[in-house]
């Protein structure tokens, strides 16, 4: 299916989990398809990078659920920073471990998972709905009962997939894509290349097949679909472009110029504009 078809299945107000980590293997082609649509009022759950920044800049996010938002080589996404500092986006702030516990609870269809993370921090003060639970065993330890973070939809990007939705990562890090897909009611995979199933198995060991077709509602072939985040070994992060993106967070004029230059058309015209950007820089 196409990225636009995936986004056509989204509804305003949905809770969307976005895969990857920071500025790495983000399903950016799917995010760009959301920007082309009218879908808005989203709750975005993410180990956040420019996915969160772009959606915040475009005003599509009602609430961000995150443990951090970072561009890796640039510590903070300026669009997310700006949206937070003008109070434009609600925040459910966890740390990575709490977010993980919440997603694992959802993946296991459990109401919560206990964790020590968050005890004594302002995360509990800011989320008065968060409860603790006492271990029923002899230790009696008081733990945070991290509630399941149920996702309406998960969007992830992997290196390879077959048309059924078995999807493979070829880089060093799976990130949380498998957990997100398991936590979601419906998951969509974009990938660099759709290949026959037996080619997937020739491409790497069985455990590199991170996401199973059992969790996947649709597959999109999106070459350079993680751009400008990294998708090793297919390509690394486009640092010059990421700097261009970060600079567009300076003010509304800079953002509009970025939109006009790169995001006014479809994915094909985006990639052409990126090539032109590099051609001009060379």
């Amino acid at each position, binding site marked *: 299916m196409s990225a636009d078809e995936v986004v056509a299945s989204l509804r305003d107000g949905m809770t969307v989990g976005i895969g990857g980590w920071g500025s790495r293997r983000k399903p950016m082609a799917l995010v760009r398809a959301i920007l082309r649509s009218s879908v808005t009022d989203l709750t975005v759950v993410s180990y956040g990078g420019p996915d969160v920044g772009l959606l915040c800049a475009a005003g599509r996010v009602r609430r961000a659920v995150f443990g951090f938002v970072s561009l890796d080589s640039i510590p903070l996404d300026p669009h997310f920073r700006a949206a937070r500092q003008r109070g434009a986006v609600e925040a459910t702030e966890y740390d*990575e471990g709490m977010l993980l516990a919440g997603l694992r609870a959802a993946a296991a269809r459990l109401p919560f998972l206990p964790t020590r993370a968050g005890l004594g921090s302002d995360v509990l003060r800011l989320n008065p709905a968060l409860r603790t639970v006492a271990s029923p065993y002899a230790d009696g330890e008081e733990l945070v009962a991290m509630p399941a973070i149920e996702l309406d939809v998960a969007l992830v990007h992997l290196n390879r997939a077959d048309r059924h939705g078995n999807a493979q990562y070829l880089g060093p890090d799976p990130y949380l894509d498998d957990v997100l897909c398991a936590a979601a009611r419906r998951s969509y995979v974009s990938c660099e290349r759709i290949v026959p199933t037996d080619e997937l198995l020739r491409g790497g060991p069985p455990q590199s097949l991170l996401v199973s077709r059992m969790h996947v509602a649709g597959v999109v072939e999106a070459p350079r679909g993680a751009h400008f985040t990294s998708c090793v070994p297919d390509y690394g992060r486009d640092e010059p472009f990421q700097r261009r993106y970060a600079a567009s967070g300076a003010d509304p004029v800079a953002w509009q110029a970025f939109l006009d230059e790169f995001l006014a058309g479809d994915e094909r015209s985006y990639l052409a504009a990126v090539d032109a950007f590099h051609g001009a820089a060379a």
Partner: protein
Amino acid sequence: MTGTDVPPTDPVPYTADEMMSVASARALADARCCFVGIGLPSTAANLARRTHAPGLVLVYESGALGAKPDRLPASIGDGILARTAVAVVSVPEVFNYWLQPGRIDVGFLGAAQLDRFANINTTVIGDYARPTVRLPGAGGAPEIAASCREVFIVLRQSARSFVRRLDFVTSVGHGGGGGDRARLGLPGAGPTLVITDLGVFRPDPQTRELTLTEVHPGVDVERVRAATGWDLKVAADLRTTPAPTDVELAALRQLARSLEAAPDPAREG
């Protein structure tokens, strides 16, 4: 490197930042396994591995266990970490099987703000709902602060970073003082060492309040006091940190150059 040179009377000039990194690296003398935050902690841990602690096992949050980068990683996702690691595990595994069970000797963290009980803030400056400065967020620091056997913190010191009251408690150090970690059920010892560009602090054995135990060469207590947002406690046997040796400085400067000479990160993870 930034910072001010110490007085020219010293035979080998070095910056306050270099003193901070050298003191941080020395602190890892007895650790076997260090969970490394990016930035100043990563500089310290890699310097330790290049000088007195070649066997130190570096664990990065991205799942790289036993990473041996031959230059400083530019970010936590820098491909050099995974390429030089003895194992790469997923983030859930890092949290659930390494950090939370207390398998890490030292968690080495940075911070934007720190209070007298070594609680740290990496979330927001100002009001939470509409912050003056939105920071990256907690990341994995709360788990590191909770569960590593002990925690070292390195940051540049000023009245803006050493504050009476944090704008947001991201990661708990010693909470409100002695006994709080036990009350909260946090298993590790918490922060045992804070290293800045001015000196070194250790928690009081009873109250757990940070106490200045070392000043760096050329720094006097009044200067540290002026850069501290609370009424600073000073150890009776205040010592002066030994200045960086030529060997330490050479290794540190080579590391700094290695970052500048790093390949285009676009080719990295």
